[in-house]
């Protein structure tokens, strides 16, 4: 391809005109900075998104399945599935919880004793009076303990909303269950930390006495969180009557907001590249001006208008590609240094993390490279098009 052959040569040999050369360098360096910035910033966005996803979902089931009559079949299916790490039945309900001094509205979750301690729930126990949380006993979060001035061994009262409602309708005294706090846990999941308490599933009929227990809820933890949607589809194909929700459904809004934020960051930072690429337009326009005679000669030798346009497109694009490559390497270098040496630290008294989290999402890289090359193309196109319209006779006369 002779257009590339000539364009490459023009790209290389501009030393004679230092001004063009300087503008060229500015465009290459600018594009490199833009590309590197994009890679780093998007990887930080991504890092924070991953961390917050982890935090939001820590201890939260990846899927919850509600079913009226399939519960045994579903359990069998879950037991066999290679996606599933852990699953258990649970009951859930709003309760009023407290003692004579304080009370709070909480979500109470009733699960089997053994499940509470399984690793997937990661409720780090701060204090444990009783290693096993069984029979009439209760686990609350460290947050609630501080808020309500409670300690292990304290007794608290629990009344479900259902029985409060019932008593209001029937003018009777609501059922109150007294439980002893046996466990105080810690969780990085803010919602779990602030709004939940746990008790043994043995208490179900005592706390929620009027419940119709035909419908059962099953919590599912997968080996890989990312498979949640796929597994949901699999499951609902198999059990169409079951009502299945994924962690994604519960957090869709915040996850979308984070994605939109990252997208706008991408667009905004592309402006850096656009500004840098604009220098290609300047330097290429000058280059075309200087090469008018060359263009006329090439035309006289039989190069078509399109051929001339391509020569200068290549010349300009090579700047873009050069800048993009350097920026790509620089961005990746910064990314790896941060990832493995944590150069940029965070104040760990304010943040849960001690260093800026970075994570590259695979499709960001082609998106950045394509944007950069596209912008270089756009700014090369106008001068290249102009070059192709050069008048042969007028330009060849000059000497």
């Amino acid at each position, binding site marked *: 391809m*002779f257009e590339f*052959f*000539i364009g490459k*040569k*023009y790209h290389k*040999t501009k030393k004679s005109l230092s001004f063009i050369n300087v503008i060229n360098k500015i465009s290459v360096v600018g594009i490199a900075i833009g590309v590197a910035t994009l890679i780093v910033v998007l990887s930080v966005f991504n890092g924070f998104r991953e961390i917050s996803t982890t935090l939001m979902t820590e201890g939260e089931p990846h899927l919850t399945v509600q079913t009226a009559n399939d519960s045994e079949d579903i359990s069998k299916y879950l037991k066999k599935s290679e996606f599933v790490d852990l699953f258990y039945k649970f009951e859930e309900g709003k309760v009023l919880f407290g003692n004579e001094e304080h009370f709070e509205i909480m979500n109470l979750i009733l699960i089997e004793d053994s499940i509470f301690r399984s690793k997937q729930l990661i409720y780090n126990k701060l204090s444990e009076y009783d290693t096993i949380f069984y029979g009439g006993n209760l686990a609350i979060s460290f947050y609630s303990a501080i808020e309500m001035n409670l300690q292990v061994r304290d007794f608290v009262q629990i009344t479900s909303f259902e029985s409060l409602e019932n008593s209001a309708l029937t003018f009777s005294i609501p059922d109150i269950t007294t439980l002893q706090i046996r466990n105080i846990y810690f969780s990085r999941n803010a919602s779990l930390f602030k709004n939940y308490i746990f008790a043994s599933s043995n208490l179900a009929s005592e706390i929620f006495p009027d419940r119709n227990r035909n419908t059962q809820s099953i919590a599912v933890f997968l080996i890989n969180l990312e498979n949640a949607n796929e597994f949901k589809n699999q499951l609902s194909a198999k059990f169409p009557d079951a009502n299945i929700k994924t962690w994604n459904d519960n957090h869709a809004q915040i996850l979308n907001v984070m994605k939109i934020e990252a997208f706008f960051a991408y667009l905004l930072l592309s402006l850096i590249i656009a500004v840098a690429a604009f220098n290609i337009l300047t330097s290429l326009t000058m280059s075309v001006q200087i090469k008018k*005679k*060359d263009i006329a*000669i*090439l*035309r*006289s*030798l*039989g*190069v*078509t*208008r*399109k*051929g001339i346009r391509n020569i200068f497109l290549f010349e300009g694009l090579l700047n873009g590609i050069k800048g993009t490559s350097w920026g790509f390497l620089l961005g990746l270098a910064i990314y790896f240094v941060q990832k493995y040496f944590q150069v940029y630290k965070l104040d760990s008294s304010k943040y849960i993390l001690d260093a800026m989290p970075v994570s590259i999402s695979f499709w960001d890289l082609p998106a950045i490279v394509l944007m950069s090359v596209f912008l270089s193309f756009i700014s090369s196109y106008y001068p290249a098009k102009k070059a192709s319209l050069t008048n*042969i*006779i007028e330009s*060849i006369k000059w*000497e």
Partner: protein
Amino acid sequence: MSVLIKASQLVKEFKSANKSIKVLKNIDLTINKNDRIIIYGASGAGKSTLLNILSSLDFPDSGKVEFEEIDIFSKTDDEISAFRNQNIGFVFQFHHLLPEFTALENVAIPMMINGISYKNAMKKAEKMLHKVNLSDRFSHKPAELSGGEQQRVAIARALINSPKILFADEPTGNLDSENSKIIQDLLLDLHNKLDLTVVIVTHNSELEKIGNRIIKMEDGNIFEIS
């Protein structure tokens, strides 16, 4: 004797702000295969303008140029470009080599434009430079060559695609008599060896000797002298 180019009723006018000059006034000219046409005339007579139109670099305001019976200007721009690349060679007064490329690359470029690979084009270019006695200047840039050498490279470039006709606009206009003689001999030699049709515009009376037809141009008209 077969006709290569037939130009009829060529008119070219240049209009500037207040007046217009008719540079070609209804010119008819037939160029036969294997002709060696020498065109001379005063400065401003319109010689270059005529040559540019005959060689498809420029358009007439009216009139026709037929090349092997095909009207050149009825073609599209892309077709004319390809036509020029394959059928026409140019040598200008100033060498008009591309300054950033070596002598060899300059010669090879018309072949590459025609779609020949770099490697094959360079091989053929070596042969062409050999023919113009520049075997030892392959990797020199134009600026590193003498005027005569530059013009010989330009001739090699003009002929690499084996064109049917070579147009030269004052090829020795910028050279001393010694170098002019070299170019003159070379053109004659190549004409004989390559079975080439040549049209040369010149002020050089020595060069007129190599022509089989001499045309004088005066004020936009041509007169065939012999």
